[in-house]
């Protein structure tokens, strides 16, 4: 149904897209992968009418089209679904599906029956478990994604473009989401799926293209869509699992004894050795992030903790920093970065008082800040133009590295990482994993909280699995497998 020929787009001297040819048939599911900055979002924007190509032609059902705006593309049945596309929290599914559309009316009043009639049939088809009358703020994350899908196809959507639809979802919810997406496909809807999770692409897509530096560098047809092949096409190497065993003779750095707080409702027991990476795996809200936040002093907690044998009672992140604990929080835009400040500002902020020229005078020495920034940036392989550029101008992976760089010039005894590779491309992911291993190899204790099962397996020397507010089991390297972790994370009943 969709045919792109010779699409090119330039921004100044850079070719965002160069001679891109792409065809998509009715009901086809195409995976679109590539590192950050490869041109994926430009391509999506062009298909969705939000941007116009400098050269090339777009055909729909064989007829050339010229989208003057996103509105035209919408009229042609093209729907882009962003993972965080806004829904009105107080509206239920029906009302959200009608956002921006004309409401059916009866005697001048909004006709809810007609709305239901229009939506319910599609809903029953793709997501029968969805309750249409509950305000979406009471729906779990995964089901809000169903609402976005439903909204897109209910109004004559023929081509769905999904941009990282599962980035915010734990593996189990992602599976449910793909189940719904599969049923959507069976209705004859075409889908373009953009994801950094290559396993999902391989499992779900009948074909895939790899975009790199604005060009399509590889195409995979039915039966050829494999993660290893796609990584190779992107110019990376497949990651390896951690094979190291925990060195139990190494000293214990942090000991957690009966700690509760936030989502962590059942007392947690955990000890991490020097040089060890402890992965904390579980669904969102299972308590793994709360444990990190407790160690970071960011939430009130009860129980007791010891740091290198001494009592450790952080009341604020400030206390934690003073004791040699470092943290890269989840959700870098909300909790990590100062987007309209420069890179140096973002790097030096937490340890600002260490940059004084005179001890008693709280005035940072800008030369020293710059020098340390350069060293830290090198250490985390940050790619940037200028230390004074604003943080918002960096790609996702580099923004994450920028937060890592805060702690790169000091010896952290404990490093806390919450979803460190969320929304980061494959290349940056592997760099970040290398950084994490290097921190551990320095003799520090590293705690990585993740909803990505493969990442837990890849990084963790041991893996603590969380479920319903507590640790259910701690796996050693040898005992852990994908199946065992999933089973532990989601088995219900026995707690």
């Amino acid at each position, binding site marked *: 149904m969709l045919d792109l020929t010779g699409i090119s787009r330039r921004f100044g001297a850079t070719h965002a897209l160069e001679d891109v040819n792409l065809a998509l048939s009715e009901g086809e599911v195409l995976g679109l992968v590539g590192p950050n900055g490869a041109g994926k979002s430009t391509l999506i924007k062009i298909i969705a009418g939000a941007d116009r190509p400098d050269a090339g032609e777009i055909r729909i059902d064989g007829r050339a089209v010229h989208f003057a705006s996103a509105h035209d593309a919408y009229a042609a049945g093209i729907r882009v679904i962003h993972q965080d596309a806004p829904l009105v929290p107080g509206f239920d599914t029906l009302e959200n599906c009608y956002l921006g559309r004309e409401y059916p009316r009866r005697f001048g009043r909004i006709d809810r029956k007609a709305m239901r009639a229009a939506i319910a049939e599609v809903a029953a088809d793709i997501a029968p478990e969805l309750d249409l009358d509950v305000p979406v703020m009471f729906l779990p994350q995964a089901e809000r994604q169903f609402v976005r899908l439903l909204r897109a196809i209910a109004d004559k959507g023929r081509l769905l473009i999904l941009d990282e639809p599962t980035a915010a979802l734990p593996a189990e919810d992602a599976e449910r989401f793909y189940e719904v997406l599969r049923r959507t496909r069976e209705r004859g809807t075409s889908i373009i799926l953009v994801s950094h999770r290559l396993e999902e692409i391989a499992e779900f897509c009948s074909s895939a293209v790899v975009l790199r530096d604005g060009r399509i560098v590889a195409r995979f047809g039915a039966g050829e869509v494999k993660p290893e092949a796609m990584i190779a096409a992107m110019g990376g190497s497949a990651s390896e699992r951690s094979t190291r065993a925990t060195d139990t003779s190494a000293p214990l750095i942090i000991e957690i004894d009966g700690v509760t707080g936030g989502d962590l409702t059942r007392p947690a027991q955990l000890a991490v050795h020097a040089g060890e990476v402890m992965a904390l795996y579980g669904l969102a809200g299972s308590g793994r992030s709360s444990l990190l936040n407790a160690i970071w002093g*960011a939430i009130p907690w009860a129980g007791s903790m010891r740091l290198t044998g001494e009592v450790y009672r952080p009341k604020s992140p400030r206390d934690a920093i003073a004791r040699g604990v470092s943290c890269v929080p989840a959700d870098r835009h909300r909790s990590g970065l100062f987007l309209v400040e420069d890179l140096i500002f973002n790097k030096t902020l937490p340890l600002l008082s260490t940059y004084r020229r005179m001890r008693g005078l709280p005035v*940072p020495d800008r030369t020293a800040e710059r020098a340390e920034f350069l060293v830290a940036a090198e250490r985390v392989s940050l790619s940037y133009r200028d230390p004074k550029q604003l943080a918002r101008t960096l790609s996702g992976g580099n923004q994450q590295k920028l937060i890592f760089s805060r702690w790169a010039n000091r010896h952290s005894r404990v490093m806390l990482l919450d979803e460190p590779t969320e929304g980061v491309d494959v290349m940056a992911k592997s760099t970040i994993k290398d950084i994490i291993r290097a921190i551990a190899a320095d003799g520090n204790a590293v705690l990585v909280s993740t909803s990505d099962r493969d990442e837990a397996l890849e990084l963790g020397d041991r893996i603590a699995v969380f479920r319903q507010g507590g640790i259910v089991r701690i796996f050693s390297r040898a005992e852990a497998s994908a199946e065992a972790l999933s089973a532990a994370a989601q088995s219900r009943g026995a707690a």
Partner: protein
Amino acid sequence: MTRTNLNRFGTLIAFVLLCIGFSIAAPTAFASPGNVFNLVQQMATLAIVATAATLVMTISEFDLSVGFSASLAAVICFVLFGQGYDVWLAVPAALLVGIVGGAANGVLVARFGIPSFVATLALGTILSGFAFGLSGGQSLFQSVPEAFKALGRGEILGIPVLGFWIVGVLGVAAFVLTQTEFGRRLKAIGGNAQAARLAGLPIVRDVIATFAIAGGLAALAGLLLASRLGSVQHTMGEPLLLPAYAAVFIGTTASPTGAPTVAGTLLGVAITGVMVNGMTIVGVEPFVQRILTGVIILVAVLVRRVGRAK
């Protein structure tokens, strides 16, 4: 001139054009040394209150109590004079009231999580009640000590004393905001409070300190105004509130990221000051002056928005 330069210096250019325009329209009256002297005196209190507003806006909050604090400080000072207290006691006491009132705002915002708009409006109303009560609703102008008059009147080396206050207060504020750890932390809190907290910044302490400083500055402005006028009314500070924020907003149009800066605020104060002064000299009706001042604020912000959308 590039678009970025136009964005950055557009506000400054507008100010210069404004001055040139009035100089041509009223060459003897506007550009005279006497009028410039006058202008500086008129701008001083507003500049200091606007600086208080700048600090609070740096942490992305509002302080609507600045005008009320200014009035209360002046009233307290004059009531103490009336009771025969010395300047050296009355002035610090009045400043302290401003600081304590500001700190109370900070506690309401940082500790109890009340939106600053609401907290400072409520507290400001309470302060204005005290000012009303203490003054009995009367103008106070009894027995003002000479030392107090010297604070805001007269001149040194041909420059009005209030000019030195502008330079001193705004200079220190600019240094604190741009050069110190405290200033850096305020920008972080204003930019992303959640991230600032997780980066280990002492947010509660810094927010309270910011409001306390703002309260102190407002009180200082009230005292300087009282010194210049020689009398006090319990509502005298209130008209400062809106022009102060107008000045900060005009000032943000001169900063590259749209964040408030002390230099930008000074420019905002100067623009509104020159507008009112120049229009009065040229003989524009007061009601037209107000309309035009409002239009200027909108134009400044609109030009900035349009410039940035590209």
